[in-house]
């Protein structure tokens, strides 16, 4: 277990380092980062000034070393647009995004897991058809379109929820549903297929051969094994939600990181874009690490690995 944890932490650190380097080169993809960072109507002199200001005229290895050493100290440069440190901006926007992502995750899990379990335990029934249908729709409806339609129906027509802003629990409902819809579909599909698979596992047959009641078999043998599968994809879904929040936060004017990255892109504030990209990737890597630890705690095969 300790060795497993240790190697996973090392892997995660390597991955974050890799992301740092990757983003560094992505920003230099066009060959002229100064031109990229400058406003569209900037004069050549202004571009030249930016080049010197950010040190883009120096050798690339010097730039990379400096960038990495700054990043190690949590310094991702100063936002051109907000005239504030990128890391500071990210930290102030983080709570809103976390709130939205957790609400979306909760919505997805609370709806999807019971539906997937009911569908998977009763294959071929109406419940199963419903579970499969929800799983399919979750995959085929774009969240940005769903967000707009939710606004039309529930904010404009019915007036039940506000159509934008972050102002109390009611304002959280529509964005959370829109953001959680795709993960919901994934969770339903996964839960259903996991239940179907575990139901026909040999050890479940053994449990039946002992005369255990169906209730005990589901509680003790089936759900426990299904939960492993679910835990293992929560990290992936969290990554998706960070990306999806770009749309949802922009549409609902939700003051989080997703909206900020959209604004940064529109403002060509690439220092901030770079900072958010690295931060988000690092965040996902850490979440992935945590889910792996949770996984290891549930699964004795990993827990007792020598």
């Amino acid at each position, binding site marked *: 277990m300790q060795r497993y944890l240790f190697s996973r932490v090392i892997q995660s650190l390597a991955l974050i380092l890799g992301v740092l380097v990757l983003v560094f080169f992505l920003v230099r993809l066009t060959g002229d980062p100064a031109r990229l960072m400058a406003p569209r109507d900037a004069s050549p002199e202004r571009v030249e000034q930016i080049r010197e200001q950010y040190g883009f005229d120096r050798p690339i290895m010097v730039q990379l070393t400096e960038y990495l050493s700054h990043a190690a100290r949590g310094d991702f440069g100063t936002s051109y647009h907000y005239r504030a440190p990128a890391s500071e901006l990210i930290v102030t926007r983080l709570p809103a995004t976390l709130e939205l992502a957790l609400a979306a995750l909760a919505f997805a899990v609370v709806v999807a897991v019971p539906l997937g379990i009911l569908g998977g335990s009763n294959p071929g029934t109406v419940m199963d058809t419903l579970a499969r249908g929800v799983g399919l729709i979750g995959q085929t409806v774009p969240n940005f379109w769903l967000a707009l339609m939710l606004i039309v129906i529930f904010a404009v027509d019915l007036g039940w929820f506000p159509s934008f802003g972050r102002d109390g629990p009611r304002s959280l409902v529509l964005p959370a549903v829109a953001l959680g819809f795709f993960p919901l579909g994934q969770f339903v599909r996964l839960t259903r297929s996991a239940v179907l698979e575990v139901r026909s596992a040999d*050890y479940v047959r*053994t449990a039946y051969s*002992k*005369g255990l009641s169906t209730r*005990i078999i589901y509680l003790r043998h089936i759900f426990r094994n299904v939960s*492993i599968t679910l835990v293992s994809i929560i990290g992936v879904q969290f990554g998706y939600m960070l990306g999806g929040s770009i749309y949802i936060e922009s549409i609902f004017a939700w003051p989080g990181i997703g909206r900020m990255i959209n604004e940064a892109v529109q403002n060509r504030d690439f220092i901030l874009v770079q900072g958010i990209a690295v931060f988000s990737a690092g965040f996902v890597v850490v979440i992935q690490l945590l889910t792996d630890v949770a996984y290891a705690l549930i699964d004795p095969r990993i827990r007792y690995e020598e």
Partner: protein
Amino acid sequence: MEPVLDVRDLAVQFETVEGTLHAVNGVSFRLRRGETLGIVGESGSGKSVSMMSLLRLIPEPPGKIHRGRALFYDAAETVDLLSLSNRRIGFLRGNRIGYIFQDPMSSLNPLLTVGIQIRESIERHTRLSGTQAKQRAIELLELVGIPSAAQRYGNYPHQFSGGMRQRVMIAIAISCDPAILIADEPTTALDVTVQAQILALVRRLTQELGISVIWISHDLGVIASLADRVLVMYGGTVVERGDVEELFTSPRHPYTVGLLGALPKLQGGEEQLVNIRGTPPSLFSSPTQCPFEPRCPWAFARCKTERPPEFFAGTGRVYLGGTESASTTQDTAESPEQEADEPFVAHRAACFHDLDRDQERDPSEPPAPAQGADKAAEAAGIGAPPSARGSASTDPPPAHTDSRQPSRLTGDRTGAEEL
């Protein structure tokens, strides 16, 4: 001797996308108290399905117990296993009838300690308290030969070897002193040396505890060393049955002959393995003919149009009440219900061959499968066959070596094992 289980005309079907699969088709047998009954057959012959359906462990749907009765003569009462309520069959499972499955690697839940997995059966069926149940589980682990049982109680299945896991499975199966133990190829997935240990363990425990055993296997050596009587299954039906010694020395059904011929010979390595040509039968068609006919070297016209009932067979030693007596009813057609009257009449085979050979078969092709029988007897460690059936015949039955079946027939796993 009184029976503990009486299965009559059991039929199990599976609805698949390709049509209805007749996995088990009219199987009848009896299990005597204290005996070990061997069931032999290749993959897809219906041996596992018929046993699992006794405890109603086949998935329904797609499976369905189509017809039949399975009377279980328990100490207190007699019940039909196939028509019990789910609640009552749940009471019998793991309590009065234990079951050991083939693959110990996947038959235990990887997320629960072996202790819990033994205990949950005890707690389901007895009134023992938590600590008593734990004590009992540790005793069981000791009983099945697991060293330092108290420590191993809290271990997870992946910390055990295959043989050790099968010991745990045995502990679970016998945890509530069952009347019957069904062992579904419990040694197939294990190493040869471990196989022998598990075999010895089950034999010792069931004798000590007086448990009747149904032992499913495709390993004839295992059956020969363990069983009192044998059923040979093919295509969802019983094609031959009898006392183990008699059946192995003088098999009468061509399939059994082939099966015994397919055994590798331990002494004198010159001879080739004999294979039964062709593939196992499709179970989709409704059986209106002998299921073995397409592969049978002795088949003739009648085999295609009629399904052979079981006939008294062969040299005619009959077991009645445990005593041997000579049979006089050779070559007489009997209805399957006959067994109801004479429960343990020994040797029968579902084949027209002996009956009609004089009229329809070419006399120049002698059927006597002496060589195969000899080999089987040697391999199974049984004495020489009666000289009456000796290898006087000039031609052994055709020994086909089919390139698609490089391994011996009994090891062939192309059939729908799970169905």
